[in-house]
């Protein structure tokens, strides 16, 4: 029963990691943009929810919707105004710029919220659980997060394969230079991609805020989880990030069982094993 329990808890955690990974994969896939500040944007979203719920007194769901809208808009504008300027054949400038952004964000959060660890209360929801038999209890919060992750990935899938915007995003991923000849602006398409990615980041960050303690410095390790989930799953596949997230989550759950200090390391080991056996990921496009 213990193993089953571990698998379940790890899988549910994997949903959150898939959300961490989805935004990163989307921006890289569409415009070869590596966003080093990705993890810090997740943390910024967590703090925004903190303000919405604790300062403004909003219901967490209203807060999530608000933060998601805000981040999507900020993502669109940030890409359009700032990040589009550093997009080029060369993938290094975006790395440098977002590395700087990452440090600025961490310092700003430290200034505004101190280094204290925080958590957003989810109104009792965070402690409620469903018990299956005597040994397995599934937390309602992890379960709904997992379902939300599936829902978000489902929406992304729908956007990519059933809308005109999705067609444009896939074409841009293939050959951005020729897309203006189709009558669509690259600047706008890139900004929409970042807007969507930022909405996903917001959902991931607000969930993180309710699930665990966070402080201004945890962004880079969330970035690392996101990278690992993307690379395990293989670039260019929306559902690959779910598989990547789940593998990472299960490995961490098993690691934590062996020893609390072993949790993160076990995730890295799983990542390295997959990387060694399948360097392009489990579900990479050929």
């Amino acid at each position, binding site marked *: 029963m213990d193993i089953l329990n571990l698998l379940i808890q790890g899988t549910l955690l994997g949903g959150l990691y898939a959300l961490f990974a989805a935004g990163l994969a989307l921006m890289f896939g569409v415009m070869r943009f590596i966003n080093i500040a990705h993890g810090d944007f997740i943390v910024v979203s967590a703090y925004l929810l903190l303000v919405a719920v604790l300062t403004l007194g909003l219901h967490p769901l209203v807060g999530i919707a608000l933060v998601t809208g805000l981040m999507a808009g900020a993502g669109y504008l940030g890409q359009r105004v700032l990040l589009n300027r550093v997009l080029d054949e060369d993938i290094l400038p975006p790395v440098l710029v977002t590395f700087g952004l990452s440090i600025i964000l961490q310092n700003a959060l430290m200034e505004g919220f101190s280094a204290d660890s925080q958590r957003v209360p989810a109104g009792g929801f965070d402690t409620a659980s469903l018990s299956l038999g005597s040994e397995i209890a599934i937390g309602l919060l992890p379960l709904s997060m997992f379902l939300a992750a599936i829902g978000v990935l489902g929406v992304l899938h729908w956007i990519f394969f059933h809308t*005109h915007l999705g*067609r*444009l995003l*896939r*074409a841009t*991923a*293939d*050959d951005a*230079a*020729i*897309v*203006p*000849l*189709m*009558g*669509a*602006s690259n600047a706008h398409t890139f900004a929409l991609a970042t807007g969507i990615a930022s909405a996903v980041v917001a959902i991931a960050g607000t969930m993180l805020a309710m699930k665990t303690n966070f402080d201004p410095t945890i962004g880079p390790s969330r970035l690392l989880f996101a990278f690992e989930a993307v690379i395990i799953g293989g670039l260019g596949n929306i559902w690959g990030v779910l598989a990547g997230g789940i593998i990472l989550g299960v490995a961490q759950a098993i690691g934590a069982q062996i020893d609390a200090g072993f949790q993160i390391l076990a995730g890295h080991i799983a990542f390295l094993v997959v990387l060694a056996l399948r360097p392009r990921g489990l579900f990479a*496009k050929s």
Partner: protein
Amino acid sequence: MTKLLEARGLTAFYGDFQALFGIDLSVDIGETLAIIGANGAGKSTFLRTITGLRPARGQDIRFDGKQIAGLAPEHIHRMGLSMVPEGRRLFPSLSVEDNLLIGASGGRTGQWTLDEVLKLFPALTERRHHGGAELSGGQQQMVAIGRALMSNPKLLLCDEISLGLAPKVVREIYAAIPLIRERGTALVVIEQDIQQALKVADRVYCFQEGRVTLSGTPSDLSLAQIKQAYFGTEVA
């Protein structure tokens, strides 16, 4: 005012290298123009400059009565100037149908719809859900032309649509040109095959090393003149 496109003294540079030296060229409404010239003469560079893919700020390019030099390529496209790029450049992860539909991203509606394009190139109908990479070279070229038509252009630029295709396939592709003209679309066709160019065009321009060395109607031009303009040397 019957000129649809008029470029005056057009120049283009790749770094320090000058690729075009003052090109004067015009296209009348409904006209089909062919541009011939050896490899590296600057034909593709000319089209890329007209479409806004290459910077043209401060130059003089009028399209449909408006100055378009320096505008973004998507703006120029939405005014009714569309291009079939050299080497087709289909989107490999899109199906044939998606490749066609994306050509309409600029929102220009008109006679050319998905159904009309499939009627023009019936070979594509049964392959509409296939990926672009699964098609033959000729079919890929049909998709590239259809994609450009989906924006209902006033002027369609075709860069070497016969390149690498068997003669029979080239004839099939060129059979579509009169049907496109019929609907009032003007064309600029870049073609290495001089005979093909003379057959299809109302007027021919010959480029050589970034300059126009000859222009006129096919009946005005002798083969000797064309060869001279094409290769730059007297051909015996």
